[in-house]
């Protein structure tokens, strides 16, 4: 917990300083007003202490000028804080397009993490320094929260949907990972660490764990065994069901004329509750997979669908175990 500012947490992400700057501004404003009020109170209390038991001071009704002053000035100061922090908040929750994706599943009381290259970790997350990392997160049971104080970043992990969180670490080291949303008996044990490494070291670390199947390949196998291929085609080329190749990130026309962006939340919903948003021109024939596949498997199928491109679908993932990011994958932080 060292930092160049006393009593401040370590700063290790591009967001840390932006958050701290607002924090220091707020601390300054707070200190100023608290000291101002205290100083005035103390001065008045001493200056106007009761000197004789029977004195009655002259009444003062009030002053519209003063009231306006101490309504408008605090409001203006508040608005500077609001505008500044809203801007940073927007950055915090808008994951960049070219980020490296990592899947996170919370579970009472551990963090299960899988890299898009297939490496799995529990309660530890290894990431390279200076690279944008996007976490796609959900949970198997209750609400958790993925909190890394050194990155000034947290987001709830909510059952039944995907939430995202992103950061870019600026300093190598090992940092606390806390579950920040109370999740039952061993809540305080649901902790771990984020290990930020130099890119070269990170590549070594990755290659030390090569015998893993990438989520996209695992997803492809599930796609076969669960029978998705019979309607969507082996490479997502479509058939009785809509085409999946190139789907991710695109606007899709729904029955009834609405369009929806095919992001993580939409694909998740369409697997678990296919009838919710039917694609234009297709009947409600797909069975629900609610309760039949785990959150891990769902994320693997998602990774497979993301990897499907119109031209060379499977090759993209099989060759080097690195799925190609397709289209503009920038889901909005709030997913319906």
């Amino acid at each position, binding site marked *: 917990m060292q930092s160049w500012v006393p009593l401040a*947490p370590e700063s290790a992400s591009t967001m840390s300083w932006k958050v701290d700057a607002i924090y220091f501004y707020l601390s300054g404003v707070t200190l100023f007003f608290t000291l101002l009020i205290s100083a005035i109170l103390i001065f*008045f209390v001493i200056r*106007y*202490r009761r000197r004789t038991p029977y004195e009655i001071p002259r009444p003062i009704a009030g002053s519209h000028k003063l009231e306006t002053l101490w309504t408008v000035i605090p409001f203006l100061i508040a608005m500077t*804080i609001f505008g500044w922090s809203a801007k940073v908040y927007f950055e915090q929750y808008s994951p960049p397009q070219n980020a490296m994706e990592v899947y996170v599943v919370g579970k009472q009381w551990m963090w299960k993490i899988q890299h898009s290259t297939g490496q799995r970790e529990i309660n530890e997350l290894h990431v390279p320094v200076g690279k944008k990392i996007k976490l796609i997160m959900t949970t198997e049971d209750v*609400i958790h929260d993925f909190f890394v104080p050194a990155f000034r970043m947290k987001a709830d992990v909510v059952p039944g949907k995907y939430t995202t969180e992103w950061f870019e670490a600026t300093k190598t080291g090992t940092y606390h990972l806390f579950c920040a949303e*109370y999740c039952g008996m061993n809540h305080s044990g649901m902790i771990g660490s984020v290990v930020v490494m130099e890119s070269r070291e990170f590549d070594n670390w990755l290659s030390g764990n090569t015998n893993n199947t990438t989520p996209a390949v695992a997803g492809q196998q599930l796609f076969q065994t669960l029978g998705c291929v019979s309607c969507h085609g082996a490479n997502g080329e479509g058939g009785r069901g809509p085409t999946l190749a190139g789907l991710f990130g695109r606007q899709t026309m729904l029955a009834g004329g609405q369009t929806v962006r095919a992001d993580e939340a939409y694909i998740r919903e369409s697997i678990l509750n296919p009838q919710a948003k039917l694609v234009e021109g297709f009947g409600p024939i797909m069975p629900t997979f609610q309760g039949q596949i785990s959150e891990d498997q769902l994320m693997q199928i998602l990774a497979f669908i993301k990897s499907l491109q119109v031209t060379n679908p499977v090759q993209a993932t099989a060759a080097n175990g690195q799925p190609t990011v397709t289209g503009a994958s920038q889901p909005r932080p*709030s997913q319906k």
Partner: protein
Amino acid sequence: MKEFEAFDLPQPSKVNYINAQYGLKSWLLTKDHKRIALLYLGSITFFFFIGGLYAMMIRLELLTPQGDLLQSTTYNKVFTQHGIIMVFFFLIPSIPATLGNFLVPMMIGAKDLAFPRINLLSWYIYMAGGLITIYALLAGGVDTGWTFYTPFSTTFSNSYVVAAGLGIFINGFSSILTGLNFIVTIHTMRAPGMTWFRLPLFIWSHYATSLVMILGTPVIAITVLLLAFERVARVGIFDPALGGDPILFQHLFWFYSHPAVYIMVLPSMGVVSELIANFSRKNIFGYKFVAFSSLAIAVFGFLVWGHHLFVASQSVYAGMIFSFLSFAVAIPSAIKVFNWTATLYKSSISFDTPMLYALGFIGLFTVGGMTGLFLAAVAVDVHLSDTYFIVAHFHYIMVGGALMGYLGGLHYWWPKISGRMYPEGWGRFSALVIFVGFNLTFLPQFVAGYLGMPRRYHAYPPEFQVFNVLSSAGASILGFGMLIPAIYFVWSMRYGKVAESNPWHLPGLEWRTQSPPPTENFEATPIVTWEAYEFAPPEETQVVGKFAGELETA
């Protein structure tokens, strides 16, 4: 020179509301708002004591980083129950049900509240809710946190969630009835001449509080009911596995529970307005601004619940709107602080215990309010949310604000309530001890939270220990400070100096009747011809030298 005591103090009569009737039945079936206030006073003190014991257990456990004193399941129940008891059974009823019940009719010159039977009913409902909650604690306890977040509470928790929820559900009706009673009373039972802008600010703040009670409490009742429904009947409302939405619960819960913060702090602001004016012998600076800021807080308070969901996967745009509104709701509170401070200008300040609490309130509430801005600032909240910073912030509001006001008010009106004076020296001493203990407990938690210590942690990384040790040390001083008034209030009921009708020499209506008051409050319906806090008649332009009359100083 006008006489300050423009009214004749009634000759102290031997008969008052306390000794008018004897026996348990005369208390349990009373319709006298003052006796009901005492019933509430006894019961909330009981619940405060239980909540305080839980707080002590928390602070003892957190003395060391390891979870060594309690098991994690026990610890989770302890902090949950600390929250449930303190919020629902102490803080929410504290000032309205005791001081409000006692004083709302007296301050407006009425004989009682508009619905005396409903008032008694509200106490019975409160007790029923409280006893069911106590049953839940004794049977095995609750471990969901006082916030009952789903799906943990509906599907995963193996504890007495439904029983505790039922207790809260039932208790809510006592809140609603109290609020209803106050609103009708303030509208219809003001004494002749007691116009709206002659009302003491205590009444304005209780009016605003009552609005929140009536409009907000049904929502928590519905929410808890839905929660129980899902838990028992497995109807999918909040649990996604059943087709529900867990975030819906958070919206519903905070739609009540954020305004509930104003149920706790608005009455306290009302008390502080009384204390500041009366102990500086000065009318409140900007009376109307202070009065209307209470209403503004009550109304805006309903529009900011989403700031509890900044990191809960709420949309970014919703987050920004709730952030803006949260900054807006801070302004009326700031207006109050500035007006209280300005009231002291060229006043005549005494340092009796209640005034010490009022001055402490202004300082602590300023810190509590300003740190609220950190959490309204979305980007900073992302880091601070669910850490000890939040714990520190809301304790500054609820303990530094609500509780300080309550204690100040209790001291101030104690002569009227009990007919006895509390020992002034001990009062000042304990106020100081409480102030120091409180700050030592909660200031370090701001730092621990900023450094990243999450709340509701049974064990924590060792680097946070120093802040927890400071906090636990402060808590023991705070606990000691709280015991002193508990002892001397009880002591004073028998041995305290007999109080005069108007021991502080004040113009308010409640001081124009004997101490303790007779059952019907006033010998005759008072006719109000003066403004609120009118120490000197309006035409007086000079500082008045002396009270006329034969008053002795307290």
